C-alpha cells in the first residue's frame, strides 16, 4: 500500500488532494439543513403506526389551532390538488399522503407546517387519526397465497400482490445442460432487506415564489434534473419555472435517487403558505420510509462436471418490493441488471426468473451501491460457487481460477446477453492470493482445525474468496431510460479569456470527489491546471440535462462527456492557434497545454494564450465562431465492467459466534484511475458497507408488520472497531470503448465484499457441516448455524 504522500497537483490524472475538502474541513459545507431563507417555515410528517389499516377519519382541528401552526395538510388536501398520489420510477404510483388506507408502518399520513421545528413536531401529536387495522403481508413467500390480503386495492382490477415476472437466458438450453451435468448443487439464500443510511437524512427546502411562480427546490437529490422533470409532470408546474438545487449532500448511496412524499409536501406547504418550507426527516423516518435495498429471496442452482468445470447456473428469485413499486432502475429492467448473475465465469448456459411482489413495507429495492441489483447477482453466484466447492470438496479459490474467463475472451458475450468490455481475471485473483499468502493461510487453518478438534482452541479461522464482475455506467439510450428519460448525460466546458475554465455537469457528487476528479479529466485533456477549473453541478438552471449519479455511472457517462467536450475545445483551440501562427491546422501538433508547429516546437501557443485570442479581435478562419467552449451529450455505447478479487480472513469465537474480520485484501481493476487516492477511498467505504451487511445489518419485521430496524439502536452500522485496516491491490485493464479507458468503481466494493465475508465465516464453520447461513451473520446467527438451527434474519417469526 502506497502512502498518500504530500504531492503536487498533477496536470491530469494522479493523486491529488480534494478541492471540496477546503470548505468541508472548516464547516463551510452547505447541506440542505444549513439553508435558511427569509420567512422559512418548518414541516413535519405524521406517520402510520400500522403496517396495514383503513383510515376512518383524520381530525386536524387541534393541530390547526396551535398558535404556531400555519398549515396542516392531509391526503384529502392533496386529493383536492390531484397530488395525493405520485408516479414512481417503476411506472407504479405511490401515496404522497394516505387517503384510503396505510400500507406500511411509517407511511406518511399528514404534514404540518409551523413556525419552528419544535412546534411542528408538537402539532403532530395533536392530530387524531382513526384506523381500522387490516391483516398485513409480511413474509414475501406468502404474498401470493390465495388468501393473502390485497395490498393495492387502489389499482383497478388488482386482485393479488403480484407485480411482475421477468426472465433472462435460455431456459431450454439450461435444462439440457443441467440434465447432463455430473453435479448439481442447489441452495436457498436471502439477501435481507437493508438500508443505505447515509449520515445525512433526506430533506428539502421548497420555495415557491408567489409573485413569479418559480419554484426553487433545495433538496438531497442524486438526480436533480430528473427531479425537475418529475416535479413538472407531477405538480403541473412549467419545467422552466422549476429550479432544483442539490447543494452539498451528506452521502447518498442510492437513498437519494427517488422523490419522497416529504419533498412533495414541502412544495405544497410552500404553495399554501407563500413561504419557504423546510422538511428534514429524522433518522428513524429515514430508515422506516425511504428506499430500502435488496430483499431478494433466491434459489440458486449450479451445474458442473465432477472435476469442477462449471457448466450452468439457474436462479429463481422472489423480490419483495414493499407496498409501492418504487424501485429505481431503467424501465426495461424490472429486476435491474440481475441478469449478470453468471458472474466472472465461462459457462455454457444460464437462466433466471424473477417475480416481484407487494408486501406491507416501505418501497425501494435498488439502493445502497447495488448498481441495479448487481449486489444480489454477485452474492448469488459467489455463494453458489462456494456451495459447489463445498459439495465437491475442493478449494474455492482454485475452483474459481479454473473457471474464470480468460483475458483473450474479451469482449465476451454472456449467456444472458451482456457484453463484458475487458478483463484479466486470473491475474487479479493471483495477486489477491499472493497478497494474503493463500497457501500459508490454508496451512494455518489446517493447524487451527486440529487444535479445535482437540479442544485446544475455540477460535475458528475462515478464509473467504469472492471474484466479481460489475456492470456500471447506465447506459445506452437505446436500451436504458428512467421514466422515458434516456440515460445519456451532458457536459459543458467554457474556457474564459484568461484561461480559467468552468465545467458544468449533470452528475451530482455526494462525496465521491467529482469537483476534483472531473477537473483532473479536463486538465489531462487540455493542460489547464485542475485548480484553474471549477466544476459546477447540482443546479438545474446552470447545468446541462442528465440523469445524475448512482450505479457508479458518473465516470463512465459524465466522465466520458467531459473528455469529449475537452477534446472539442482542444480542436477549436487548434483552429484559433492556426490563425495565431498563420499555419494550416494540419501543421499543428498537440502536447499537453499547447499547440505547436510540427518540426518547430518553439513556435507554439499555450492553451491560455489561445483562450485570450479566441475572445479577441483576431481574425478567425471561416466558420470558427470564436470563444473557447463546447457541449456534449454522451450516449455510452456499452456499460463498463470493472472487476475485482477479494479475500477476507475471519476469526470466529466458537463459544459465542462472534466474528472478527482479521484481514481483508481487495484487488480492484477499474481501468484507468483518474485519482488513485479517491479510488482507494471509494473502495474503503464500500468494504465497510460489505462488512456491515454481512455481519450486522438487517431491517426485520414482526408478524404485525412492525419495523424492527427503525433506529441506529437496532440497525447497526460498522464503527471503526469492526473494520480492519484494508489492504488494496490494483490491476489496470482499460475499458476499450471509454474515451479515457476508465470504468466506474464506486460500488464495486459493496458489490464484491459481502460474499467474501460470508464465504469466510462459512469456511470457518465448515467443520460443523454448515453449508449456508444467511446474512447478517450476527453472533446469534452464527451460533445458531453451528447448532444446526439456522435463523431467519429478516423475520421475527420462527
Amino acid at each position, binding site marked *: 500500500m502506497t502512502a498518500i504522500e504530500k504531492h503536487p497537483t498533477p496536470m491530469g490524472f494522479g493523486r491529488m488532494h480534494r478541492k471540496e475538502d477546503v470548505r468541508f474541513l472548516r464547516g463551510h459545507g452547505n447541506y440542505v439543513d*444549513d439553508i435558511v431563507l427569509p420567512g422559512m417555515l418548518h414541516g413535519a410528517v405524521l406517520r402510520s403506526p400500522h403496517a396495514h389499516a383503513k383510515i376512518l377519519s383524520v381530525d386536524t382541528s387541534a393541530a390547526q389551532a396551535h398558535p404556531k401552526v400555519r398549515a396542516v395538510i392531509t391526503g384529502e388536501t392533496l386529493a383536492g390538488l390531484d397530488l395525493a398520489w405520485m408516479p414512481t420510477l417503476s411506472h407504479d404510483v405511490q401515496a404522497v399522503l394516505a387517503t384510503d388506507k396505510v400500507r406500511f408502518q411509517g407511511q406518511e399520513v399528514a404534514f404540518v407546517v409551523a413556525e419552528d421545528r419544535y412546534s411542528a413536531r408538537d402539532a403532530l401529536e395533536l392530530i387524531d387519526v382513526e384506523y381500522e387495522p387490516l391483516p398485513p403481508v409480511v413474509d414475501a413467500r406468502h404474498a401470493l397465497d390465495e388468501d393473502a390480503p390485497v395490498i393495492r386495492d387502489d389499482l383497478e382490477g388488482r386482485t393479488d400482490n403480484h407485480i411482475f415476472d421477468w426472465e433472462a437466458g435460455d431456459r431450454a438450453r439450461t435444462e439440457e445442460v443441467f440434465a447432463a451435468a455430473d453435479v448439481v448443487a442447489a441452495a436457498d439464500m436471502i439477501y435481507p432487506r437493508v438500508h443505505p443510511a447515509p449520515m445525512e437524512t433526506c430533506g428539502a427546502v421548497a420555495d415557491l415564489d408567489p409573485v413569479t411562480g418559480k419554484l426553487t427546490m433545495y433538496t438531497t437529490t442524486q438526480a436533480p434534473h430528473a427531479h425537475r422533470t418529475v416535479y413538472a409532470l407531477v405538480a403541473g408546474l412549467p419545467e422552466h419555472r422549476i429550479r432544483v438545487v442539490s447543494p452539498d449532500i451528506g452521502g447518498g448511496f442510492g437513498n437519494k435517487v427517488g422523490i419522497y412524499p416529504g419533498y412533495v409536501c414541502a412544495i405544497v406547504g410552500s404553495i399554501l403558505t407563500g413561504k419557504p418550507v423546510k422538511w428534514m426527516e429524522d*433518522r428513524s423516518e429515514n430508515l422506516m420510509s425511504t428506499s430500502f435495498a435488496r430483499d431478494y429471496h433466491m434459489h440458486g442452482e449450479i451445474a458442473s462436471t465432477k472435476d469442477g468445470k462449471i457448466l450452468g447456473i439457474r436462479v429463481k428469485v422472489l423480490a419483495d418490493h414493499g407496498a409501492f413499486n418504487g424501485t429505481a432502475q431503467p424501465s426495461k429492467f424490472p429486476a435491474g441488471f440481475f441478469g449478470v448473475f453468471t458472474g466472472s465465469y465461462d459457462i455454457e448456459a444460464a437462466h433466471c426468473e424473477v417475480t416481484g411482489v407487494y408486501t406491507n413495507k416501505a418501497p425501494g429495492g435498488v439502493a445502497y451501491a447495488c448498481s441495479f441489483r448487481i449486489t444480489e447477482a454477485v452474492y448469488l453466484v459467489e455463494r453458489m460457487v462456494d456451495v459447489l466447492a463445498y459439495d465437491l470438496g475442493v478449494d474455492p479459490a482454485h475452483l474459481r481460477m479454473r473457471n474464470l474467463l480468460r483475458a483473450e475472451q474479451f469482449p465476451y458475450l454472456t449467456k444472458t446477453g451482456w457484453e463484458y468490455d475487458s478483463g484479466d481475471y486470473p491475474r487479479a485473483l493471483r495477486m489477491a492470493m499472493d497478497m494474503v499468502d493463500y497457501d500459508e493461510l490454508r496451512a494455518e487453518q489446517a493447524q487451527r482445525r486440529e487444535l479445535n478438534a482437540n479442544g485446544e482452541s475455540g477460535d475458528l479461522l475462515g478464509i473467504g474468496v469472492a471474484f466479481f464482475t460489475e456492470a456500471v455506467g447506465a447506459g445506452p439510450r437505446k436500451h436504458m431510460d428512467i421514466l422515458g428519460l434516456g440515460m445519456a448525460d451532458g457536459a459543458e466546458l467554457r474556457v474564459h479569456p484568461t484561461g480559467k475554465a468552468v465545467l458544468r455537469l449533470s452528475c451530482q457528487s455526494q462525496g*465521491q470527489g467529482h469537483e476534483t476528479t472531473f477537473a483532473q479529466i479536463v486538465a489531462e485533456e487540455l493542460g489547464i491546471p485542475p485548480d484553474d477549473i471549477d466544476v459546477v453541478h447540482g443546479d438545474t438552471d446552470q447545468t446541462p440535462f442528465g440523469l445524475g449519479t448512482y450505479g457508479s455511472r458518473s465516470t463512465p457517462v459524465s466522465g466520458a462527456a467531459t473528455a469529449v467536450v475537452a477534446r472539442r475545445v482542444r480542436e477549436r483551440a487548434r483552429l484559433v492557434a492556426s490563425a495565431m501562427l498563420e499555419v494550416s491546422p494540419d501543421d499543428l501538433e498537440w502536447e499537453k497545454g499547447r499547440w505547436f508547429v510540427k518540426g518547430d516546437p518553439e513556435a507554439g501557443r499555450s492553451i491560455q494564450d489561445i483562450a485570450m485570442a479566441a475572445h479577441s479581435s483576431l481574425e478567425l478562419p471561416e466558420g470558427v465562431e470564436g470563444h473557447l467552449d463546447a457541449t456534449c451529450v454522451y450516449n455510452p455505447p456499452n456499460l463498463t465492467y470493472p472487476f475485482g478479487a477479494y479475500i477476507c480472513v475471519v476469526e470466529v469465537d466458537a463459544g459465542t459466534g462472534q466474528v472478527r474480520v482479521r484481514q481483508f485484501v481487495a484487488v480492484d481493476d477499474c481501468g484507468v484511475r483518474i485519482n488513485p*487516492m479517491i479510488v482507494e*477511498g471509494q473502495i474503503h467505504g464500500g468494504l465497510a458497507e460489505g462488512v456491515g451487511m454481512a455481519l450486522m445489518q438487517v431491517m426485520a419485521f414482526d408478524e404485525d408488520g412492525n419495523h424492527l430496524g427503525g433506529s441506529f439502536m437496532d440497525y447497526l452500522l460498522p464503527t471503526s472497531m469492526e473494520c480492519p485496516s484494508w489492504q488494496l491491490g490494483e490491476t489496470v485493464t482499460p475499458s476499450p470503448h471509454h474515451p479515457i479507458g476508465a470504468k466506474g468503481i464506486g460500488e464495486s466494493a459493496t458489490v464484491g465484499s459481502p460474499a467474501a465475508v460470508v464465504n469466510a465465516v462459512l469456511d470457518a464453520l465448515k467443520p460443523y457441516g454448515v453449508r449456508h447461513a444467511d446474512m447478517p451473520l450476527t453472533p446469534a446467527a452464527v451460533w445458531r448455524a453451528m447448532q444446526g438451527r439456522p435463523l431467519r434474519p429478516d423475520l421475527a417469526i420462527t
Partner: protein
Amino acid sequence: MKVTIEVNGRTVSEEVEDRTLLVHFLRETAGLTATNIGCDTTSCGACTVLLDGESVKSCTVLAAQADGHQVTTLEGLTGEDGELHPVQRAFREQHGLQCGFCTPGMIMASVSLLKHNPKPTRDEVRVGLEGNLCRCTGYHNIVSAVIDASGQEVDR
C-alpha cells in the same frame, strides 16, 4: 429561559425554550452549521463538540445545561489567520473525508482523543472514535489522519 454560552470564544446569549438541544442552539441560534445531526438516538456522533474541552454529543445536551460553559465547534478550530488545525490538515492530507458530513464531529472527537492520548496506536484510535459513525471512508484514512496529526509516521 436565557442562556449564555461562550462559543468559540464569543459570548452567545439568547432566550431559548428549556427543551432546546445544544445542537439546535449552535446551528440555529449561534448560526454555526458545521455541527451536524445524523441520528436521533445519540449513536452517530456527527454533532460532537467540545464542552469545557471534553467531547460531547451536542444532540444529547440541553442548551440550558451548557449555560455558563464554553463550547468549541469545528469553526473554532481554525486559527485567526485561517490556518488549519493539525487535525484538519491531516484529514485532508490522508483523504479522511468524502461527503464531509461526519467530518466536523469526527475532527472534534479526534482533537479530544489526542488531548488524552497524544501518541495513540491505530487500534487506540479505533477505540477512541468508536462513537463516531462514518458511511463513506471505511475509517481507514480517518485512522491514518489521526496518526498523522499526532506527529507519528503513518504506517498504512
